[in-house]
């Protein structure tokens, strides 16, 4: 099976709990509707129930957060303890960002907030009020992969793939920041993303390649 076929196959997997295929999610840029679990009328609540998971606990300190995720406005009631990572994964069904360590040590949860890469596991969801979040699901232009996504495929920059969404989000930021100017600098500025499979050689090559295509190399 060629690499392209493998990607096709894996995209057919169901995204459990939401009735969406991963391809659908990618296509729609993660179609999210405004979600407010307690403050809106029955119709919007019904629509929300299709799309967002309910809060698993009754929050002692509920907080309404309004933010933009992959270009879509989102309004969700959260418990104040919620991280951006848990908001994305558990409430909005965007499971691209991974919970590796949950302590800011591995980089698997990397997303962009207001154009800068952050560890979403150590970012309080309350902090993205009024902000803009971009995840791996929002990176491609419909079916056209972002140059960094394509470069990771072309350079075999992964094995198991678990760290890859975080690697790619960090890598895109690394290029945009102007920190992809040499192999040494790429290694330094990507050191917050751990790959236990050890695909580092491919990752550095992919970033060099994508940087030239993104016009920053």
């Amino acid at each position, binding site marked *: 099976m060629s690499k392209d076929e493998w990607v096709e196959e894996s995209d057919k997997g169901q995204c459990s709990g939401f009735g969406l295929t991963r391809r659908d999610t990618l296509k729609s840029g993660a179609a999210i509707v405004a979600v407010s679990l307690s403050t809106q009328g029955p119709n919007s609540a019904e629509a929300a129930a299709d799309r967002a998971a309910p809060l698993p606990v009754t*929050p*002692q*300190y509920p*907080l309404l957060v309004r933010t933009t995720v992959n270009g879509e406005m989102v309004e969700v009631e959260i*418990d*104040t*303890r919620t*991280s951006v990572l848990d908001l994305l994964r558990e409430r909005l069904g965007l499971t691209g960002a991974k919970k590796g360590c*949950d*302590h*800011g040590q591995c*980089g698997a949860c*990397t997303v962009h907030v207001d154009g*800068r*890469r*952050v*560890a979403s596991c*150590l*970012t*309080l969801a*309350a*902090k993205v*009020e009024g902000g803009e979040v971009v995840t791996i699901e929002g990176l491609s232009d419909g079916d056209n992969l972002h140059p960094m996504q394509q470069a990771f495929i072309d350079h075999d920059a992964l094995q198991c793939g678990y760290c890859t969404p975080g690697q790619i989000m*960090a890598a895109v*930021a*690394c290029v945009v*920041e102007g*920190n992809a100017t040499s192999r040494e600098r790429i*290694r*330094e*500025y990507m*050191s*917050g*993303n751990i790959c236990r499979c050890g695909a580092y050689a491919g990752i550095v090559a992919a970033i060099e390649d994508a940087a030239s295509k993104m016009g920053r190399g």
Partner: protein
Amino acid sequence: MRPFSYIRPTTAEEAVNAFADAEAGARFIAGGTTLYDLMKLNIERPTHLIDVTAIGGLATIDTSGDRLRFGALAPMSAVAADPVVAGDYPVLAEALWKAASQQLRNMATVGGNLLQRTRCMYFRNGVDGVYPCNKREPGSGCAAIGGLDRGQAVLGASGSCNAVSPGDWPVALTAMDASVEIVGPAGQRRVPIAELYRLPGDTPHIEFSLAPGELITVIEVPRETLEAGTARGSTYHKIRDRESYAFALASAAVVLEIEDDQVIRARIALGGVATRPWRATEAEAVLAGQRLTPERAIEAGRAAFRTAQPGRHNRFKLELGARTVADALLIAAERSRS
């Protein structure tokens, strides 16, 4: 994690007042890279979070005057990339970009970084009775003393605590004689960076000389004592178990003023080896008025550790630390010549 209420005031006054009005258990939060992390470990247990990041005017970087002024809310990544800092103050820039990862540096603020708590593994991993720790539970004891102490401090430890002060940026600021501006319930005050940090003594849980409800607003670095208002003859030299993204085993911030090959003044601070950012005055004294040779550099390095007290597994830090100081001195000297 315990439930907590959350507010995000837009002025420092509001934040300070909110702290005063809150019951015990209020904490300020900025980037959250330390506090939220320790809350997940159940070590920090605030009941009321006051997010200070929406306070206006505290994220500015001003390098135009005779003092560099960094708003406490400026992200570490922004200060590291500032052209004046990156070009003229390598000791400051290196202390920032060699810390953490770019993701964390985008989140963490230069003010919050001053208050980062120790990475002592007994402090972090022994909550709820697994290991005693005088920082977590005052009076409970210290499992690190006589324990697996490879990472622990060899300078400034007490019979209660030998946890290392983890930061890089505070070490560089210590070498630069920086100070911080603070607002609090009793008004404004300025504190030299050297006075911000306390030795553990019998009260290792009290790490900073900040009163409850006090907030760091600005970090100020003097530049007028340095030739041409720069510190190009400086470095932050950081030695780690891996090349990047790790805490220091030993580090040295060095700021040199050299004339005709003679050291007019050397300022040296140590990280990774002490219970607080550590000014190495003994090492500085070795160099004053002398020609800086490799022999003199290692002599200064050894002087920095003359009073060091190693435990079972961290004796290596004496030699590593001395050589780190020596290498840093030679790097700074090379830069001051160019």
